């Protein structure tokens, strides 16, 4: 899913992209473990639902299993959730969007592309 959310920001070269995604997963895991219990539970429910075929189909409208889904499939799913009339689908999209964006761009490795120099030394 991160490939769909971050295409255009992730490194294009395969090895570098794999490294960027591994780093992202570690940071996501840290970010989620810092959330309060009720938020973790909701996120767990969302991810569990997205992990089943019926859930993936109902929430994101993606027919291929995630491991076979292309970036285009994922983005079609994101689009469907983002502009859905169903509140739960919009909430799901925003949770994935916010968490992934925050975790990815918290790494210094992503800052050069933004033109952000990082904190001023003291």
């Amino acid at each position, binding site marked *: 899913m991160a490939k*769909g*959310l*971050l*295409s*255009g*920001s992730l490194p294009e070269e395969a090895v570098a992209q794999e490294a960027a995604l591994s780093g992202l997963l570690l*940071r996501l895991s*840290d*970010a989620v473990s*810092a*959330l*309060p*219990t*009720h*938020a973790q539970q909701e996120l767990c429910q969302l991810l569990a639902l997205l992990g089943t075929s019926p859930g993936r189909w109902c929430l994101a409208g993606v027919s291929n299993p995630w491991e076979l889904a292309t*970036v285009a499939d994922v*983005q079609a799913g*994101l689009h469907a959730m*983002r*502009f859905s009339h169903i*509140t739960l689908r*919009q*909430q799901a999209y*925003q*949770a994935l*969007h*916010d*968490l992934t*964006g*925050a975790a*990815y*761009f*918290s*790494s210094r490795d*992503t*800052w050069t*592309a*933004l*033109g*952000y120099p990082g*904190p*001023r030394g*003291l």
Partner: protein
Amino acid sequence: MSKLPDPWLVGLAKGWQVLGHSIPPPATLKADVVVIGTGAGGGVTAELLARAGLRVIMLEEGPLKTSKDFNQLESEAYPALYQESAARKTDDKAINILQGRCVGGSTTVNWTSSFRTPSATLTFWRNRFGLAGMTEEAMAPYFQEAERRLNIGAWLTSPNENNELLRKGASRLGISSDSIPRNVKGCWNLGSCGMGCPTNAKQSMLLTTVPTALDRGAVLLVNTRALRLNLAQGRIQSVMAEYLSQKVHLTHTEKTSGAVEIKCEHVVVAGGAINSPALLLRSSMPDPYQVLGRRTFLHPVVMSAAVMEHEVAGWQGAPQTIYSDHFLETQPIDGQMGYKLEVPPIHPVIFASSIPGYGEPQAALLKSFANQHILLALLRDGFHDESVGGRVGVRADGSPTLHYPLNDFVMDGARRALLSMAEIQFAAGAKQVLPVHEMAKPYTNWGEAKDAIFRLPMLPLQTRVVSAHVMGGCGMADSPQLGVTRPDGAHWQIPNLSVHDGSLFPTSIGANPQLSIYGLVNRLTQNLIRRLGGRPEALA
């Protein structure tokens, strides 16, 4: 790690009584007054009570983090210093709420904007909530003391470019703007206020009132959350709390917890306007008129992201130094919703998680990060029959919830705010403006933006709404039908329980609330000292 001197290291070395940091608190404690929360309200209360000679225990659910810990990194600051990792949300997830959760509360992480309560707001409180004593004249000495104590004054350094663009765009349209007073002393103009001030320039409660209270013998419990207030014979007998500490080791996380009961004569609740009403609800405090946790206000914020031809570097320099109240003053306070315009600091995490879209379109916005100029509008809620705010509740596990309907009345204000901000940004020279809304696109001229914003469906979730100012829920009024607390901050039904934080406000403020809390709580605490028989004290 900041190598600058950290006054907390000196204080702890000389014997400040801080429990829950390296030493767990004992199972029982005793105090004259327990102050729950160490933010703007709790800090001022604790300093004054301790100086008045009362035995004070401060209870803080968040950790003790001090300047040596402040590395100006969002990835560290949000999980460590904010409620719910800076991702606290209303129950429909449509509003993201920023609130502090650490010693000093939100004052440790705020952007230092310091406004007195606007005169129009006080007039409304006198007329609608019977708060006859809330006049500008009566409040002035209490604000003056807070301003002296916290070095609040004009900021004489030039605004950073992000703020300067608000001044420039507004001025080209004939819209007035002014500079924002700040609570700083020797500010380095770093722009990292939201991640904890690493130079101890910000005169937050972490640096001022909490240390003074500790110097005067008060005890501070950190990582310790108030669970409930024990009520018997019509009075609070004790506060039940839970100490919870997590130490992350290489291979495992060590969790320590324990129950703490603090017996006391008086309780001051100052946990912020979500946690304070939630504590009273959890404690089943009497609420005969069903007013507790109601009328919770947020200053709902909408944003507009412009790309300039030149670098703005919105991360750099004092984050909030220019404002415009023009759109608060274009209609009566109880007419259509007005809004205050300001700018936020721009850092990667908050930007990437707030800016709409994904994939290539979002990547294009991120590539213009350094040239981004962002405006925000704080909507003044709570002054109209169609703006009754939100309602705090509690989950089965005791954690608080907030239901806040973004109805048509609020969203009409949001649409007008998006229009005003886009017009100002184009006047300032923006080459494109993106209203922060899922269905908006970057627009390249004012005509195009105006047509598009008029057509945007102003719905919750589609419109990105955030808040950094939670107010109300334990509102003051001259009758128990209209408010939870009396005009002196005491609970209407329970004489030895006071509320001293932003939850006292019967409406929103219409300005960043920290100084409104300092001034009001300064006044309420001086009265409370007289009631409790302490030595009279003033804040400065």
